[in-house]
């Protein structure tokens, strides 16, 4: 059995553009923040999935990246608990955290909202992608100072070598007050680009 993993597909969302396997797939005419960009990118795929509009901005970003990534491949050959999602970022859910904090700071207008609070955990986007695609494998979300392929590559390789999973969505989904960026990739044992730190770093940086 082949014990090596390969990057079969990858998707980058950056500067109001979406690239899949290096090719530009969507471009928003105006660079007007994540909320409008995510909506336009969603409409471009037209998936008719109303839950999308309930998500906070970073979950929308992760969701959009996963939709474009998985749009070009089939995951049907894997059992739902054989597909794992391992993500990372540097700002956790800070933008949504600030939104929640704003609903509770003033005692005169203290109205914490459950639909905001529930998104103040970074792994909620893993939940959203899992619900959308019926994925039931391993989950982990790491918070790192800056994009760090090592943690994700190690985690995915370890899960594979211990037979916990056969297919993986790995990557980085970050949202700050001023910027957003997503880089998701799909890994299996089907021959393509080798799944290692160098390759992941190159894919992330070469756009």
């Amino acid at each position, binding site marked *: 059995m082949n014990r090596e993993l390969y990057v079969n597909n990858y998707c980058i969302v950056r500067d109001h553009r979406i690239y899949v396997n290096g090719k530009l797939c969507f471009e928003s005419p105006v660079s007007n923040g994540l909320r409008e960009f995510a909506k336009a990118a969603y409409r471009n795929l037209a998936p008719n999935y109303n839950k999308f509009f309930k998500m906070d901005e970073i979950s929308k970003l992760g969701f959009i990246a996963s939709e474009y990534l998985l749009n070009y491949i089939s995951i049907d050959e894997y059992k*739902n*608990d054989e597909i794992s*999602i391992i993500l990372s970022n*540097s*700002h*956790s859910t*800070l933008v949504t*955290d*600030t939104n*929640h*904090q704003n*609903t*509770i*700071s003033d*005692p005169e207008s*203290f109205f*914490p*909202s*459950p639909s905001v*609070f*529930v998104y*103040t*955990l*970074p*792994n*909620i*986007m*893993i*939940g*959203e992608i*899992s*619900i959308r*695609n*019926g*994925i*039931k*494998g*391993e*989950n*982990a*979300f*790491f*918070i*790192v*100072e800056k994009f*760090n392929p090592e*943690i994700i590559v*190690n*985690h995915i*390789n*370890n*899960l594979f*070598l*211990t*037979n*916990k999973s056969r297919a993986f969505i790995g990557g980085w989904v970050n949202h700050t007050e001023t910027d957003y960026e997503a880089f998701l990739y799909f890994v299996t044992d089907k021959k393509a680009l080798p799944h290692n730190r160098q390759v992941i770093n190159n894919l992330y940086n070469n756009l």
Partner: protein
Amino acid sequence: MVHFLADNIISSLGITTSENFSSLLSGEVGIRTIYDKKYYPEPFPVSMIDEVSLEHEYNKLTLNYSYEGSTTKLEKMIILSVADALKNTKIDIRSRRTAIIVSTTKGNIDLLDPAKKGCFESDRVLLWKAGNIISRFFANPNKTIVLSNACVSGVVAINTAAMYINSGLYDNVVVTGADIVSRFVVSGFMSFLSLSQGACKPFDMNRDGLSLGEAAATVIMSNKSESNSSIVYLSGASANDANHISGPSRTGEGSAIAIKKAMIEAGITAKDIDHISAHGTATPYNDEMESIAITRNNLQDVPLNSLKGYLGHTLGAAGLVETAVLLEEMRRNIMLKTAGFEEHGVSKPLNVLRQNESKELNCCMKMASGFGGSNAALIISKQEINEPGAIR
């Protein structure tokens, strides 16, 4: 083979594992109803760490370390917890072969509160920053790895540490974690109507929600044993429900998958498991979901407890706190009762512990579940298992 070398718990019930365990053994409950508008406009039950003694202990500790920067409440809790656990092992925290993993859901989230503005640099709220403080304090040369995966963080952090050691990436991993009680978290759970009126009542007929708590805990894992009677890590897994971002699956699917995968990896069957430490938050849905997941794996007769009725739900620390308690239960061969449990209140006939019970504990399981559809489980054992079913 991955060995558990040492551990610590910092909570409302003590600042070492043995202090906490003595309190738990005597049935002491750390949850009190407090009325402090800093946290919430109305009274609510919660398990809190005494801040004065926390400061005192921290100041005592810093005399032995050269770190001079200021630290937040959360960082102090983690540092105290790691330092105490380190006292009981020979591992070198300054070695490249030793990694630190921090498990937390919200880290220094209290710093977002306007009342705390200016106390620390504004980006101190970022979780990796707290991680950096921990590695700097202990002069660990590696970047601290921060894992934030809702309420399964602690269990997933231990599973991750075991993979690091088994793959040869590191020789030792200090797995630590903490979460604090904050206005942020209390108001959020209040808006979910998921907090109980009094101290929470896991698996009970009249359970009405969870109680929050704050804690830090540490377990130190290594590829070498430091004694001839060590407890080892057998296996662990996580799984997503793919059902709803806040509501647990009605079929217990994700939790059942995590348990099943962990049992397969360990090469054991249901009859090999002596005791289960459940997640048991005492929300109506969580406990019901767990009862189904446990029964689906034929584990319904295994004596089970939840510790949430003593210490509340400590979020990102919970998996570590409860694994540290489970290790102590195994060392002493005692299973703790489930505080708050009176009348069986889930649809499956689980064996929920009503009294502390003595039992030879060789192989035990820890479960966790959380928002985002996340579930996890891990299995630990007193002895090495070479062949499937070799445990007796």
